């Protein structure tokens, strides 16, 4: 008996658990402690709560918080209003070109936020194509898109697909008999939508709205691009860090701490709310989409296609501009079409950026996959204090805005013994940290649904533990995990807020590269890089669709 116990102590899973705990301590907990300490550093070298005082007492800074909340609430509101009906129409009625609609909707949600904002500027900005068109033909001056409006439009067009995807998922789990029962009891149409459908989808709608809220709150690229005078706090962190008026690291750290606290509170509210509204339904017979009455039919097609085109067209225009000729400086478009923007960006290191993006994406996804598989196994099959600790730590990055991860890592690994700043490695690490909670959660869910008797069957048939894990457990998790990994991949290659803080010329990725051209005003070249990035995204999505077949896309 004793012998057996001692043997199990040295078991491979214990070693893996210790290793993972160590990784979390080094790359997550240590940087967080570091940033907490730095938040107390005053510019004059003393330590106090001065940075926090400054943030909350100076209306100039405090206003950024208010602004961020304003943006998030309004964006969430519009995303729901647009996304829920779209999901309802999409799932309840027959529509032409459903597959195409779905692909475009997913594509909208996958583009890099700042590129979305940038395309809106190209269309509706001071020099935007529609603005100029209206002015030259009708002498009509478009209202200014910059600031609050622009952020809301740009973020909504990117985030309503989340609501669509979540709500669609919920609608798919509603059994058709519930709809029939409702109609049998005399409730149909709009009344049924509000009395039956919406309450049944509530858990998912809630989850979606809080995700939208969090993303809008922590988003950095959009306000940076289109916000102009309208300041939000993720941008403020960045500004304090790069220092328009001299770098103030302590202050950046302090805002980060405030940001983490806020997102943590929102996260806890989300957990509480979902637990309140959680019930599980499972459809034996999913809802059959019906043919809508002619009038309604026209309306739902009009609504869906209009919404999706408005969200997508700025990007298509961006792709289009990438093929336009530009002036020598690259700042002004001139007549004619060619690949000159592409040639120009090639000369300036497009290949390096592509390589970096691919390397960062591949490495990060590989590490995430391996870690997530191991962690989920420890959490589901080997419940212990260690696995609980890992489980808890793996949730922390949920509440870390991207720029905070960047600042925390840079302040932790710019000195010996471990200098990582300026390397591709630090970007990989940051991406792993940011994406891993999502992959771990989905892996835990997947593994939780695999009965343990599968592994026991293998063991009783003479297979050893390692062989069982790799031969039975991992392949059974396979499909779900790989589709999750592909989504992580897309998020990573379109990421800006962390990499903009961590990048150097050597390690710049496609998003950073795009941003560099945008900030120089080289619109053609920015468009070319952004188009390459879109191409990457589209290819990845195609692969994803092939892999996941008819499975749902969830984030």
């Amino acid at each position, binding site marked *: 008996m004793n012998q057996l116990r001692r043997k199990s102590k040295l078991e491979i899973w214990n070693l893996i658990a210790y290793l993972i705990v160590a990784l979390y301590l080094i790359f997550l907990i240590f940087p967080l402690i570091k940033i907490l300490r730095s938040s107390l550093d005053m510019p004059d070298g003393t330590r106090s709560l001065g940075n926090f005082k400054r943030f909350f007492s100076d209306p100039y800074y405090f206003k950024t918080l208010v602004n961020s909340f304003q943006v998030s609430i309004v964006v969430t509101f519009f995303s729901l209003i647009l996304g829920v009906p779209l999901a309802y129409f999409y799932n309840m009625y027959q529509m032409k070109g459903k597959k195409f609609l779905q692909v475009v909707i997913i594509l909208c949600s996958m583009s890099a936020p700042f590129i979305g904002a940038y395309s809106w500027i190209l269309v509706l900005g001071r020099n935007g194509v529609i603005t100029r068109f209206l002015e030259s033909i009708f002498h009509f001056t478009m209202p200014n898109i910059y600031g609050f409006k622009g952020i809301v439009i740009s973020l909504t067009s990117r985030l309503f697909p989340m609501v669509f995807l979540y709500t669609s998922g919920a609608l798919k789990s509603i059994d058709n008999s519930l709809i029939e029962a409702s109609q049998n009891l005399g409730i149909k149409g709009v009344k049924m939508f509000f009395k039956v459908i919406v309450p049944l989808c509530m858990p998912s709608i809630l989850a979606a709205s809080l995700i939208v809220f969090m993303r809008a709150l922590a988003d950095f690229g959009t306000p940076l691009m289109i916000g102009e005078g309208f300041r939000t706090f993720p941008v403020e962190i960045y500004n304090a860090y790069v220092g328009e008026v001299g770098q103030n690291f302590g202050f950046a750290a302090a805002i980060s701490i405030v940001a983490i606290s806020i997102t943590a509170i929102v996260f806890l509210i989300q957990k509480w709310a979902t637990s309140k509204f959680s019930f599980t339904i499972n459809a034996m017979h999913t809802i059959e989409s019906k043919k809508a009455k002619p009038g309604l039919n026209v309306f739902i097609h009009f609504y869906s296609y209009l919404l999706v085109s408005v969200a997508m067209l700025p990007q298509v225009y961006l792709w289009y501009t990438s093929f336009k000729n530009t002036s020598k400086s690259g700042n002004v478009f001139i007549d004619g079409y060619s690949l000159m923007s592409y040639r120009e960006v090639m000369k300036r290191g497009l290949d390096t950026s592509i390589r970096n993006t691919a390397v960062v994406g591949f490495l990060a996804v590989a590490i995430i996959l391996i870690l997530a598989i191991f962690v989920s196994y420890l959490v589901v099959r080997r419940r212990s204090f260690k696995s609980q600790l890992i489980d808890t730590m793996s949730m922390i990055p949920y509440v870390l805005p991207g720029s905070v991860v960047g600042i925390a890592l840079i302040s932790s690994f710019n000195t010996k013994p471990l200098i990582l700043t300026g390397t591709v490695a630090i970007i990989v690490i940051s991406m792993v940290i940011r994406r891993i909670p999502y992959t771990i959660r989905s892996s835990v869910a997947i593994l939780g649904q695999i009965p343990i*008797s599968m592994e026991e069957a293998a063991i*009783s048939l003479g297979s050893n533990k390692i*062989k069982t894990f790799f031969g039975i457990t991992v392949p059974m998790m396979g499909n779900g995990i790989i589709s999750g990994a592909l989504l992580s991949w897309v998020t990573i290659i379109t990421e800006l807020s962390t990499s903009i803080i961590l990048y150097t010329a050597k390690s710049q990725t496609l998003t950073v590269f795009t941003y560099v051209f945008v900030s120089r005003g080289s619109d053609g070249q920015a468009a070319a890089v952004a188009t390459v990035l879109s191409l990457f995204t589209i290819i990845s999505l195609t692969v994803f669709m092939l892999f996941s077949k008819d499975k749902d896309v969830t984030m």
Partner: protein
Amino acid sequence: MSVNIHIKNAVKRFGNNTIIPDLSLDVQEGEFFTLLGPSGCGKTTLLRMIAGFNTIEGGDFYFNEKRINDLDPAKRNIGMVFQNYAIFPHLTVRKNVAFGLKNKKFPKDQIEELTDKFMKLVHVDEYANRIPERLSGGQQQRVALARALVIAPDVLLMDEPLSNLDAKLRVEMRGVIKKIHSDVGITTIYVTHDQEEAMAVSDRIAVMNEGEIQHIGSPKNVYQRPANVFVASFIGRTNMLKAELVIKAKKPYLCLPGGFEINIEGVKSEHMNDMDVQVSIRPEEFVLYDENEPGLKGTVTDNIFLGLNTHYNVTLATGEEVEIIQESSIQSTIEKGMKVSLQIKKEKINIFTADGSENILLGVKNDKKE
């Protein structure tokens, strides 16, 4: 090669919760042995201790002379069939069946040959290259059986293998299992909570309750001479009545409620005293008579015609409700509200001590080890 199994003083605890306090049993070589009991009685726990998936907190487990307590589950050479079949969904039927042979590093041609043989045995050979998802429950169960048997295990363990199947398939599959067992002749331990299923397949049944064995015996013995009240009421249906044992002129009489008295035979000599007893009378052990005949007096409160048999509910004059099964006759069934007299097939009934812990009649064969 089959083995016999000895379990001596097994103990199972989860934390402070003792599931099995002290359990011993022997299974003979080649025997079909069933652990039967209500859910939570510890039967699956015991099976998983034998398989090696549960730790053993005390006692010894032997396959023949070999103690297996600390043997890795992978090395016990056990074939196991799980309640949810545990068919690997990402492998074809053939690969599922071949899985154990590959782990045992059998040569390729032999794997092929054995896999084919066992797929044929359970009649799934035509689905060899299918993914299990597309098989019905019964077919999956057959695959699970083939996969467990193909490795020529010393012991076959089956954990409620039929509980996920529909009623008709369950009956069909227990025939399949019984036939394969008699063809292969392997020592088998089978767990179920379905007493009819247990009786249909088993050589011997161990009836368990709260982690303890109540009775080990043949299906016939367990049904006809149950060791105690728990066994009597768990196996089949029965009516339990309070009664008195009265000894008159060295002959035992049973005095039933309402004063109906019958002489009985076969009371163990150590119980030849006047005392309170519990009587188990199965529904088919009553005979209905006209109210003027001697017997237990009562009133019919319900009758259910089920074809072969007719079930009656009768409320006795003393208040107890009893259930009676009679073969349906061509005459009309006895109507509700009719007064009747109940007589008893006295050689079939069982009589227990007042606390229900012991059958006081001769003929109980209990292989339970103290």
